[in-house]
């Protein structure tokens, strides 16, 4: 968190309403998102209790395990969940585009992808565990499960994993996305409560949000008081209707909150780089669908040495790109870098568009721009710069003193002797330059898994899902 966000929090606390910390939306919002609110049985790792889900805000589906200790009912619940989720996921596979690649065969990329919106990070973790507990199951043998359960497990695992990929929007958590766009007058810890966070953004803070009788927790854990006074007696009564109704009361308020959260995010204009990140999501989704179609094995329990290093490299790169893109897309995010002196903005007061360097054939156009800024500039001369106003261009800081910064444009000027119209900022134009740049080197190759070196334990045993995985109890 930066001082800028802290200031927004202070302001929110003072005014009694959340303050924006973004001017554009940094996540993709699907035209057809599926809201998914899972609940689990207290005290168990991943025993499902209920879920409310659907793509139509007026017609939520409620799935309930009315006897949560019954293993067969849990798998039946998983099969029901698969019955809603899998058709939704698969509906995005039909329409694809062909993508050409350098040094590789072209591939088919889905034109759109599923988006599973969950309330909070707890729901993401629970989804991952649900995936873990179902993807190794067998549809035959001693403990058979309904056919669609293992497939559901693989998709839940995929979506849960993808949620921790920086900048991905396949499985956003409402509290996280809201928290990225608004600062409340409470702590980050309290922001994890969806009802509390939403109230700050809309009507102002209320302690009702912490009262489980008014706003039941958004899951996956239920309120202990509800468990003791409502759920346990309902389960003991043996009446499935009563259990179902009890759980409906816990889920419906959150259901309404979720759609309100989506509406709030939809009210923001989309950031310029969002489509690009969504394209990566679509590619990733298509890759997963292809892996399933080719009959690949379910995802292993944990990453091997090579897979871990590869995933880390991808995630680090995505994180760096996400951070830079958000700053380029959103002046309010860029302001954080201006505050720390890694970016500056101001008005162009002087230009030398025809400035050149070098002689003869190596003579190059290097226009100079002088910017007047109030920002503290902490960048040394020679720093490479980029600018959100002209993303293809690269520049270099020449000098900075007394609120005047001289910048030399070094990249993206083309081969001409004079700059193309609009390529060099005009006097009077507002511009922003930053040392943050989005050009990353590719990462070097990793060994094949079967050539894992001795320093990392040597080649791993090939992973074959065995009966142990399939028969693991689900207590």
């Amino acid at each position, binding site marked *: 968190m930066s001082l800028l966000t802290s200031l927004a929090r202070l302001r929110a606390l003072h005014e009694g309403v959340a303050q924006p910390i973004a001017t554009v939306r940094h996540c993709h919002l699907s035209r057809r998102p599926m809201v998914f609110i899972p609940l689990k049985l207290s005290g168990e790792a991943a025993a499902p209790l209920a879920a409310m889900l659907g793509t139509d805000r007026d017609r939520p589906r409620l799935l309930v395990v009315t006897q949560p200790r019954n293993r067969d009912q849990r798998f039946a619940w998983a099969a029901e969940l698969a019955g809603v989720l899998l058709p939704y996921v698969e509906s995005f596979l039909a329409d694809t585009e062909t993508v050409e690649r350098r040094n590789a065969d072209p591939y088919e990329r889905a034109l759109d992808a599923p988006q599973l919106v969950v309330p909070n990070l707890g729901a993401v973790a629970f989804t991952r565990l649900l995936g873990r507990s179902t993807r190794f199951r067998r549809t035959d043998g001693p403990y058979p499960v309904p056919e669609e359960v293992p497939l559901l497990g693989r998709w839940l695992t995929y979506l849960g994993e993808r949620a921790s990929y920086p900048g991905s929007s396949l499985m956003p958590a409402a509290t996280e996305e809201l928290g990225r766009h608004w600062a409340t007058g409470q702590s980050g810890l309290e922001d994890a409560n969806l009802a509390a966070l939403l109230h700050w953004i809309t009507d102002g803070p209320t302690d009702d949000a912490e009262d489980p009788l008014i706003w039941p927790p958004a899951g996956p854990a239920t309120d202990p*008081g509800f468990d003791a006074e409502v759920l346990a*007696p309902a389960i003991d009564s043996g009446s499935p209707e009563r259990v179902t109704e009890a759980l409906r009361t816990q889920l419906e308020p959150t259901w309404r909150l979720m759609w309100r959260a989506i509406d709030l995010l939809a009210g923001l204009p989309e950031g310029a780089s969002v489509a690009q990140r969504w394209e990566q999501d679509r590619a990733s989704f298509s890759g997963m669908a292809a892996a399933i179609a080719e009959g690949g094995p379910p995802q292993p329990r944990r990453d091997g040495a090579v897979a871990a290093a590869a995933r880390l490299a991808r995630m680090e790169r995505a994180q760096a790109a996400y951070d830079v893109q958000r700053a380029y897309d959103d002046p309010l995010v860029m302001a954080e870098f201006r505050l720390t002196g890694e970016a500056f903005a101001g008005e162009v007061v002087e230009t030398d568009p025809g400035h050149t360097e070098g002689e003869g054939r190596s003579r190059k156009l290097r226009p100079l721009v002088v910017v007047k800024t109030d920002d503290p500039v902490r960048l040394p001369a020679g720093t490479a710069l980029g600018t959100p106003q002209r993303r293809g261009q690269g520049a270099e800081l020449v000098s900075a003193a007394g609120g005047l910064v001289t910048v030399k444009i070094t990249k993206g000027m083309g081969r001409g002797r004079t700059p193309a119209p609009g390529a060099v900022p005009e006097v009077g134009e507002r511009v922003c330059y930053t040392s943050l740049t989005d050009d990353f080197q590719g990462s070097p190759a990793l060994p094949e898994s079967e050539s894992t070196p001795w320093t990392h334990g040597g080649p791993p045993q090939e992973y074959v899902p065995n009966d142990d995985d399939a*028969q693991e109890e689900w207590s």
Partner: protein
Amino acid sequence: MSDRLDDLERRIDELRSAVRRAMRARDTGTARVLRAELRHAERAWDALVSTVPAGPPEPPAPRLVTVREQVHQALHLLSAPAQPRLIVAVSGAFFGGTIRSAQLTSLRRDEARSFRSSPYGRPYYLCAALTDRLSPARGLLTLSAWPLERRVIGPLSPRVDFLTCAIAIATAAATAAAGAAAPDERATRLLAGLARNIPGGADGDVAPPDPERVAAAARAELAVHAERDTRDRAELAQRATSQLGDVARLFGAATLSTIVKEEAR
């Protein structure tokens, strides 16, 4: 009817909130009153929404064999002091038993009361195992017909009894399997759980347990402990014989704290 249902639902919601609020304030008195009202309303609601009246899902089958007798059967098979959970499992696996652990909690006290009112009036009693202080051991049941040496518990006895039970169960499983077309799943699961905890008793988790192998492994470990355990138990049994009267010999000598509890009751 739907009006009435709506009213009931509103009432139930109100009552639930009130109970939870009372519980949060630790006002148990109010909570109790409200809960009673709530149950009443819930029953009315159930009656309206369900075609079949709500209640325990299936009516209990007529019990031909009493809980007492079922426990006796299981203990007889095990031939060693055992905890309710094992007794219930054995009863279910080999005798089609229907008992639940909760039904066993008051058993020992009932037996003691019966014995006190008419000593030796029954052919057998379900009684306590005795600790090295000759007090009743927590959560262990035995049969009165057993020699005292079997009913006392030395430091090694829990393990010895576990192995003894494992042998008994393996033997019973082998016999049952010989007679039946397919092994009973409950027996298999019970045996697998035991086999896992005996060195050499099982080969990973996947294959169904081999009763003979389980029994052999249990016997092998038993041989390690048997001598000392027999000695410890003989000593304890002798002390029990010389120090305890009839009631205490069957149900354990009261410790100070249990006397206090009894008096408070």
